Each structure stands twice: as structure tokens, then as C-alpha cells.
């Protein structure tokens, strides 16, 4: 921590929040709101004379209210920066008549009530999101009586209690009588692994944190009776199982089952009943103190930051990485990286590992001193653009800006564009050109393919990353399928324009396949959702025009699903055989007529 404070290349803004981010990879302009500290950060030596005279006593947040502090205070002894800070809401006022005792006490004259909030703009090339976590608030799950019984603590409160620098100097005492408890129970998975309250996910750290606490207790108080109520003990990391074994060997009692409720006993201890599923018995325990192993929640500001940076969140509220296995620290927005619990619950070692990885990824991006842009991007034909805003709506990267109200044509930010082509497929006015996968280029392929013996052929669109790779995998595996299919590769299935399909049918294609990555696996965040919607729309129109919708198929085929690709090809061939020449002729006639009337579907 102190290394950060004195590092010549680190500018540290505390009491600060990012309020706006503009720009794109390589050049982000970040607006930071730095709240007033009312104490000169550079001059303050943290002597503490000011706090001695401050008459305002408040609960200390760092100790979770288990001790008190003054309105002018140091957050904790090792704080960086080490300067004191005034909570101006609590301060009696900067009117010397009212108080201002601290001003008199400070020899160096560090205290300045006229300090005001500052807005700072910084330009950066990359961003690491390390917004951390919040612990689960157990008040919503009051079965264990956290709001009603004083001797029920959260694991973080317990952590402060056993901390040598904590409010009791490391002595574990019961809040009600300040006596050392003879027995302590730990309840696991509070706010985790529950579909009812808290999160459905495992919070990753609570099992090991409880095991650590039991070891510390046994070290301090070998005779203490310690019970742990659990669903499973997840001790999967390096050295974890050994700690668990040690804890058991020291006599910590592990009981498989979570208590239903907790009640307060006559001595203000807790009575818990639990179904011990290992023993198959209902058991009741009297404990002096109960500790709730609370889970990890995403930080409160995650959603605002997500909107500012165009990031994605999982359904749990943690940030979603660009790829869960191959890009675990990259955000889908280029130039943004994740570190620590912002991305998901993790322990210190994993947080540090991910932080180093994020730093390395940021360096990899920046070390050339310039950013190479992807040449396969979309461009707007400004004269044709009607500023409807559809492209900006479908772009998974927020790479398109368009002013719908003032009718200013769309502009593609090529540094942010990843080249999926969804915008070009969705533009109702053909005002977007997807370089290297233009309408003309793809339609030329469709024409060449259907020029001769169209009725014998299966036209298939495949996305580069999954379906086309799946077809390659079928080849590498020598899986045999009928030779009638002809693949057209696009970067994303989101590129497959409605008009490609209509043109295919108009030229006599018996069947057409659109294939892409599975939903959730799209290499362009969620562009394939638009594929899905578009195909559904075309199906409806087909029905209206009297064309059997089965002739257009949509399949999700991953790069590993060679077998599935071959099966789909067999199925497409069977579908093709079922289409009669009369049916094809009918479709061609309907669509040719429609295109002549220029109200083409």
C-alpha cells in the first residue's frame, strides 16, 4: 500500500469517483470527481492532535461500528494517504464560533474548511476495472437473527474482532457482556448458493475464510468449542485442504447442514437447530456467539460504470469477461480490463494474479505506442443515412454514434468497431458498408452458387468463429456428409442480411441455412441475438408469402461440434430433397414479382 503512495508514476486520487468516460481504446477522456478532504493531504503528518479535541463521536466504519471515531479521523492506522479526513456531514461546522477546535489544535495549519470538490480530467489509453466487492447484507435473511440478537456477527465483523489492530486488540469478546465466548458457531453460505435470497452462486472465499477463523481461534483459545454448519466445504485451492484437515484435527466440529433458524437463549447465547445430514439427526446446539459467513456481492457502482464504459454484466451483477476461458481479464470493450472481485468472487491470490494479468494485457496493448485498427470494419455512406439509429441500437460495441433527433448521420468509430457486420445487416437503407463482407461481395457468391442446378444445392451461411470452424472440424475428423452444401463465410451470423436470404430463394435455392455460435458464445458479445430475431422475422414473412418456413433453418454450431455440423448437413439435404421443383418455381415467381413491384419483402 505504501508503495502506491510513494510511487513516482502513480497519481492517487482518494475520495474520488469516475463520473464520465469519453473516447475509445488508446484515448479515453476520464472525468473524475474528487471530493474535498478538508485536510491538506501533503502537509498532514497524522499526529492525531485534531481528533483528540473533536467533540463528535461516531461509529467507526473500518471497524464496522464495533468502535468509534471522531468527525476528523484517520480511516485506519496504515491508511494511504496517511492524512486525516473530515466527514463534513458530521462536523459541527466550519464556523469558529460553533467549534473549529481541530483548526486550533493543528500546528501545521492543515485543516481548510474552504476546500471544495474538484473535477479532474485525465486522458488514458487503457482502463483497469478493479471495483471490488460488497459483502452480503444479512438483514434480508433474518432467520439467523442478525438484526435481533447482538451476539450474531458477520464474518467481516468477526474479522475486526480477532484483528490485533481491531477494537478489542484481538481479544474475541461477546458484544453483549464483553466476555470471552466459550462456544462459537459459524453458519456458511449466508447469501450464497441460494435461489431465494442473496446469490445463487458460490462466493468462493467463505469456506476457507471460516477455516482460517477457526484456526486463529484455536491458536488463541485451544479449549473453545467451535462448530461449523455447512453445505459442502469447498477447499479446492493449493494448500486449502491441508488447512481444513488441520482445523478438523484441532477439534473444530464440522456439521453438514445449515440451521433453519436461530433463537436467543437466557444468557443471550444462541440456540440453533440443525438437521445434521451426515448423521441423519435433528440436533440442537447452544452457542455463545454465532458468526454468519456472508457472501460476496458485486460493488454498488458496477452498473453505472457498466453504462459509462459499455461493458456487460452477468446475471449476478459481476462484470462479464470477453471470453470466459481465453480472455478472462479482457472486457469486450477494447482497452478495458478486469481485476479482482469486480469480475467475480475470488480470494486474494486470485485477485492479485488477475490484476497482474490485467496489467500485462494493458501493457501488451500500449507498448507499441500506437493502436492498430481492424481494417474489416463498417463504414457509413452518409448520403444514404436517414439517422434512424437502428445501427447504433444493434452495435454490441457502442461503436456507432448517431444523433436521431438532429438527424445527423451515423458515424462508426473504427477503433471500437470489431467488424461483426450486424449494423450493415440491420440498416434499412443500405447506408452501411461492411468492408470485406459487402452486400455486393456476398450476393456475388450467392449468384455464382445458384447459377446452375440451383435446386440441387444447399446454401449455407456460417460465422467465422464457430460454425465455419465446426465445418472445418468435421473435415479434420473425416466425417462424411452429402456434397450439395456450399458455405458462405461471414465474420458473424449477425452479418447475414435479410436480402441475402430473399435473393437466394428468388434465384431458386431449395433450402438455406444460417449458422452461428451458440447464444451466449457469440464472439461479438451478443450479435447473434439479432440473427435470431432476424430469422424469426423472415420466417413470419415467408409464411405470409406462402413459402414454407422450414426451408430456412437456423442452427447454432460451435467450433467443437464437427459431428453436429455433419448431422445438420444430413438434415439439410433431407429437407432439400423434400422441396419439389414446382415449389421452387412458385417461390421464384412470388419473389420475382415482389421485387419488381419494389415492395420486396
Amino acid at each position, binding site marked *: 500500500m505504501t508503495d*502506491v*503512495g510513494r*510511487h513516482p*508514476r502513480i*497519481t*492517487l*486520487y*482518494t475520495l*474520488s469517483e*469516475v463520473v464520465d468516460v469519453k473516447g475509445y481504446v488508446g*484515448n479515453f477522456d476520464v472525468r*473524475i470527481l474528487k471530493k474535498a478532504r478538508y485536510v491538506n493531504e501533503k502537509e498532514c503528518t497524522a499526529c492525531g492532535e485534531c481528533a483528540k479535541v473533536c467533540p463528535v463521536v461516531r461509529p467507526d466504519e*473500518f471497524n464496522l461500528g464495533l468502535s468509534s471515531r471522531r468527525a476528523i479521523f484517520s*480511516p485506519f492506522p496504515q491508511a494511504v*494517504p496517511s492524512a486525516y479526513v473530515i466527514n463534513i456531514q458530521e462536523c459541527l461546522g466550519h464556523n469558529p464560533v460553533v467549534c473549529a477546535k481541530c483548526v486550533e489544535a493543528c500546528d501545521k495549519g492543515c485543516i481548510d474548511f474552504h476546500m471544495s470538490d474538484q473535477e479532474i480530467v485525465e486522458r*488514458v*489509453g487503457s*482502463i*483497469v*476495472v478493479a471495483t*471490488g466487492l460488497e*459483502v452480503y447484507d444479512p438483514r434480508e435473511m433474518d432467520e439467523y437473527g442478525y438484526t435481533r440478537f447482538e451476539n450474531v456477527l458477520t464474518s467481516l465483523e468477526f*474479522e475486526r474482532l480477532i*484483528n490485533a489492530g481491531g477494537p478489542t486488540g*484481538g481479544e474475541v469478546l461477546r458484544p453483549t457482556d464483553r466476555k470471552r465466548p466459550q462456544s462459537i458457531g459459524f453458519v456458511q453460505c449466508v447469501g450464497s448458493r441460494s435461489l431465494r435470497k442473496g446469490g445463487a452462486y458460490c462466493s468462493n472465499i467463505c469456506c*476457507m*475464510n471460516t477455516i*482460517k477463523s477457526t484456526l*486463529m481461534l484455536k491458536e488463541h483459545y485451544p479449549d473453545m468449542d467451535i462448530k461449523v454448519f455447512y453445505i459442502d466445504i469447498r477447499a479446492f*485451492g493449493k494448500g*486449502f485442504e*491441508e488447512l481444513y484437515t488441520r482445523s478438523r484435527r484441532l477439534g473444530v466440529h464440522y456439521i453438514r447442514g445449515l440451521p433453519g433458524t436461530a433463537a436467543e437463549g437466557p444468557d443471550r447465547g444462541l440456540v440453533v437447530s440443525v438437521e445434521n445430514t451426515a448423521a441423519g439427526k435433528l440436533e440442537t446446539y447452544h452457542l455463545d456467539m454465532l458468526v454468519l459467513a456472508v457472501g460476496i456481492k458485486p460493488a454498488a457502482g458496477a452498473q453505472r460504470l457498466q453504462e459509462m464504459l459499455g461493458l456487460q454484466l452477468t446475471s449476478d451483477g459481476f462484470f462479464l469477461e470477453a471470453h470466459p476461458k481465453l480472455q478472462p481479464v479482457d472486457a469486450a470493450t477494447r482497452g478495458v480490463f478486469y*481485476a*479482482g472481485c469486480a469480475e467475480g468472487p475470488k480470494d*486474494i491470490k486470485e*485477485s*492479485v494474479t488477475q490484476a497482474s494479468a490485467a*496489467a500485462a494485457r494493458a501493457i501488451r496493448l*500500449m507498448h507499441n505506442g*500506437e*493502436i492498430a*485498427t481492424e481494417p474489416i470494419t463498417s*463504414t*457509413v455512406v452518409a448520403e444514404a443515412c436517414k439517422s434512424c439509429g437502428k445501427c447504433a441500437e444493434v452495435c454490441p460495441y457502442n461503436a456507432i454514434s448517431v444523433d436521431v433527433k438532429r438527424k445527423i448521420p451515423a*458515424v*462508426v*468509430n*473504427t477503433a471500437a468497431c470489431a467488424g461483426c457486420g450486424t449494423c450493415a445487416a440491420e440498416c434499412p437503407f443500405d447506408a452501411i458498408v461492411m468492408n470485406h463482407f*459487402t452486400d455486393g461481395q*456476398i450476393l*456475388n*457468391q450467392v*449468384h*455464382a452458387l445458384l447459377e446452375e442446378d440451383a435446386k440441387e444445392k444447399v446454401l449455407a451461411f456460417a460465422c467465422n468463429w464457430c460454425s465455419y470452424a465446426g*465445418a*472445418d472440424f468435421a473435415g*479434420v475428423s473425416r*466425417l462424411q*456428409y452429402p*456434397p450439395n452444401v456450399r458455405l458462405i463465410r461471414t465474420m458473424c451470423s449477425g452479418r447475414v442480411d435479410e436480402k441475402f436470404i430473399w435473393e437466394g430463394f428468388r434465384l431458386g435455392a431449395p433450402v438455406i441455412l444460417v449458422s452461428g455460435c451458440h447464444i451466449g458464445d457469440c464472439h461479438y458479445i451478443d450479435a447473434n441475438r439479432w440473427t435470431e430475431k432476424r430469422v424469426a422475422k423472415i420466417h413470419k414473412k415467408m409464411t405470409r408469402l406462402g413459402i414454407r418456413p422450414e426451408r430456412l433453418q437456423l442452427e447454432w454450431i460451435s467450433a467443437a461440434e464437427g459431428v453436429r455440423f455433419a448431422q445438420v448437413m444430413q438434415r439439410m439435404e433431407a429437407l432439400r430433397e423434400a422441396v419439389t421443383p414446382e415449389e421452387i418455381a412458385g417461390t421464384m415467381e412470388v419473389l420475382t414479382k415482389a421485387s419488381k413491384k419494389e415492395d420486396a419483402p
Partner: protein
Amino acid sequence: MPARAPVKETETAGEGPRIGVYVCHCGLNIAQTVDCRKVAEAARRLNDVAVSKDIAYACSEPGQQQMKNDIREYGLDRVVVASCSPRLHEPTFRQMLQSAGLNPYLLEMANLREQCSWVHMKDPEGATQKAFDLVKMAVSRIRLLQPLQEETLPLTPRTLVIGGGVAGIQAALDLADNGYEVVLVEKQPSIGGVMAQLDKTFPTMDCSI
């Protein structure tokens, strides 16, 4: 904000494009199922194709050299390579084009191996017909391909780290120690995050700060 001017899509004016087509045998990988010579001969009759050949190994040094020589000799301005999957050798052939003085994006590949010869081994005739179709599709597409340029944009070699907990601290120090400027933003009055509240940490049971 960088925005590229749209590329105008016109068939090359005047004389029309000069396309070279190379049908690769890949040893026997393609040639044992697909009649490569027949495909190359048929491709020669397609519009704008200036030269069409079958070739033993397109990706090999002699194969690439032959294509480079042809680009010079026949004045080719774009090349169709009918061989394996573009996911494998597209970068190879793009480099070849570049070293021959052509824009690397004026390349089109027809996948005759993974998506043809290997999956239709029992139907050489059907495979050959499909191979020709794939080449024909590639030729029709390449006529409209446009040269593309990779652009470079200036960059600010600084990083914003949002959050001063253990992850933010580690990322900031790694970056700063590597010579990059870091702006670290923390909403609390001190950095340290939740980690600073912990005493001992698992699995080594050492102090957190």
C-alpha cells in the same frame, strides 16, 4: 473520432480485374478426391481469370514462389487460392500477396480440403463439382474485393485503475513498475479495500497488509 470513408464498390474500371486461380493438390489430401486439374481448367474459362493452375502445395516455398512469379508475369491484381481452410493459411497467403506488392486483402480462399475433399471422400464426382462451385464463388467474390489498410492511431500510454483494493493496487504497481503512468481512483479516503480489514489470510495465515 476516426471514421473511414466508405469504399466505393465498383468492378475495377477499364480493363477489369486480373485474377489468378491456384487449385492446390495438398499432396493427395485434396487430389485423391477432387480432380484438381479439371477444376483449374474449368476456372480458366471464368470471366476475369487471367491464369488458372493446379499446384502441388500452394503453401510451400516453391508454391508461393510460383504464385509470386505469376503475379509479376501475368500482371495479376488478385489471387484465389483453392486449398485448405482460410482459418489455417489465410495469413500465409496474405503475406505472400504483400511481398509480391499486392494488397493482402485482395486474396480469397476456397476451402477444398476441410469442407470438400475430406468430407466427400466417397463421391469424387460430387466433390469435384462442389470444388468448382467453391472456386466460382471465390472468383465472383474476389472481383469486388477492395484493398484495405490497417490504420494506426496515436495512443496515450497511461492507465486508469478504478478501485484501490488489493487488485487495483497490484495492477497499478505492475503497470507503474513497467514504466507506465497510472491514475488510481479510490472512492474511500484510503486505498486498501476489504483486504485492509483482514488480519491473517489463508492459505498461509500471514498478515494481509
